């Protein structure tokens, strides 16, 4: 759905990373982990297109002025360009136009499996809402978080407060183990697990190969340049596993995804 939302808070968590809470209609309460929203940073034509962000959290809060709980959505974002820079300048009370929830979320999988979350950089964002849902379902959850340095590692405490076991790796070793998060992950892979990964494409490719090697089912959440967010423009497609020029098989990240079973996709 499309709605006008109001910024509740917009806080810098670490250099260039912000967490923003916005009001939302009650219906958003049933959004699935892995779904995303698209927001128009300004009414002006600069920047023109909406910007997509995964749902970092969805919940309710009590306003001062009445008794009924109000719904909020949160995103965790990194300032990388013009749109996110303008976003980071928004304050409590600013209006913003949202489309949400968009896309297909993570399927939570079977009860009793160990749930392995793998997040690279800001790819961590959608995993928090996922972890909450999994924990609420009584699952054992482990998080593997990677980044270039400690500034890229966010909200680990929040995960831990949910009871999630966390593993951290940074390229420069400034937090957790030094190296790729996939190296740490590999040591802990085994039967009875299910992977949920979000992060840069090379990381997702590595995770999905690793998952296949270990016979562990794996869902990945992708990013792509998007215009419409609703499956209409065909701008955001990714080749499916059997795609070739002769037998075209493109999937819309916005509508068929952003979450895919790793075997659905063609990994180059």
């Amino acid at each position, binding site marked *: 759905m*499309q709605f006008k939302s109001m910024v509740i808070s917009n806080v810098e968590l670490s250099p260039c990373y912000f967490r923003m809470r916005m009001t939302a209609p009650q219906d958003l309460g049933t959004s699935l982990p892995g779904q995303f929203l698209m927001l128009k940073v300004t009414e002006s*034509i600069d920047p023109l*297109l909406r910007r997509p962000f995964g749902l970092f959290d969805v919940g309710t809060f009590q306003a001062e002025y009445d008794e009924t709980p109000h719904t909020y959505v949160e995103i965790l974002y990194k300032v990388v360009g013009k749109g996110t820079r303008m976003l980071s300048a928004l304050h409590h009370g600013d209006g913003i136009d949202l489309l949400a929830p968009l896309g297909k979320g993570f399927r939570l999988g079977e009860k009793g499996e160990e749930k392995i979350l793998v997040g690279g950089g800001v790819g961590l964002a959608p995993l928090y809402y996922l972890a909450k849902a999994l924990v609420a379902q009584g699952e054992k959850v482990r998080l593997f978080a990677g980044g270039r340095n400690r500034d890229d590692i966010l909200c680990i405490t929040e995960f831990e407060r949910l009871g999630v076991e966390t593993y951290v790796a940074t390229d420069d070793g400034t937090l957790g183990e030094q190296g790729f998060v996939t190296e740490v992950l590999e040591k802990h892979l085994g039967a009875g697990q299910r992977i949920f990964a979000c992060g840069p494409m090379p990381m997702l490719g590595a995770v999905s190969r690793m998952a296949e090697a270990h016979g562990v089912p794996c869902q990945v959440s992708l990013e792509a340049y998007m*215009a419409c967010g609703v*499956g209409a423009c065909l701008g955001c497609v990714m080749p499916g596993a059997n795609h070739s020029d002769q037998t075209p098989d*493109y999937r819309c990240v916005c509508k068929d995804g952003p979450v895919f079973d790793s075997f659905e996709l063609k990994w180059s």
Partner: protein
Amino acid sequence: MHKPDMSVEVAGIKMRNPVMTASGTFGYGAEFADYLDLESIGAMITKGLSLKPKAGNPTPRIVETPGGMLNAIGLQNVGIDAFIAEKLPYLKNVQTPVVVNLYGNTLEEYGEVASRLDGLPGVAGIEVNISCPNVKQGGIVFGTDPKAAQEVVRLVRKSTTKPMIVKLSPNVTDVVSMAIACAEAGADALSLINTLTGMAIDLDRRRPILANVTGGLSGPAIKPVALRMVWQVAKNVKLPIIGIGGIMNGRDALEFMLAGATAIQVGTASFLDPGAAQRIAREMEQYLTENGIESVSSLIGALNA
């Protein structure tokens, strides 16, 4: 005041208002059903259709530019069989005319797609895309050469009894002679403009951003070029014109009508606001009401210039 008369007719297609959705920006209609009332707009134009399913270009396919965007979708589409089987049934239930945008990878294919659509219930008309700048084998040649355009239009004319709109490319020296050529070859109406060919570069990676290198520029940035072309063509060709290019709101739409358009299409705006087409129709009506204008068709070509 009573409500203004918003209805217009283009090439025999009766519309409740002049707002159509532009091909490639509105999917097959259903994608937007959650965001607007499909029965509030004048007509829907579907994604460009070819005979066979088409993969389109590799990604990235879109990129934002100042006041606009480039796309190089490469005319990905489900092909005519899947369209008839999977998309058309839904559209038939919507009480809004559906115009099918089509193209061929070869001259003959244009004719074949047109014949397949001829006589098909639920298709109010066709829009022939001779202007897509993305596909090397495809539209580009037809769309920038009056003789080649005439060939296509004549062939399609022979292949269909449906109202035929021909969509013009802006990437030409002389859009008027293209328009005249298409009119002579039997077009019932002209729509313009398609996208301007452009390019974007990733400085740090020293690469074009689009996998296809170049793409089609759309959005507010191109509005002045579109208005100019609509005005030039309207002055020189008798056919009804559908104005396209950067229309974001009701005022933009009415400017195109003053320039000579009988109807308009909303493209990129639907990405920014999925309810744009309905909103624009409402804003147009509001303007008429506020200014005591009784019928929207009285504005067509009403520019004092």
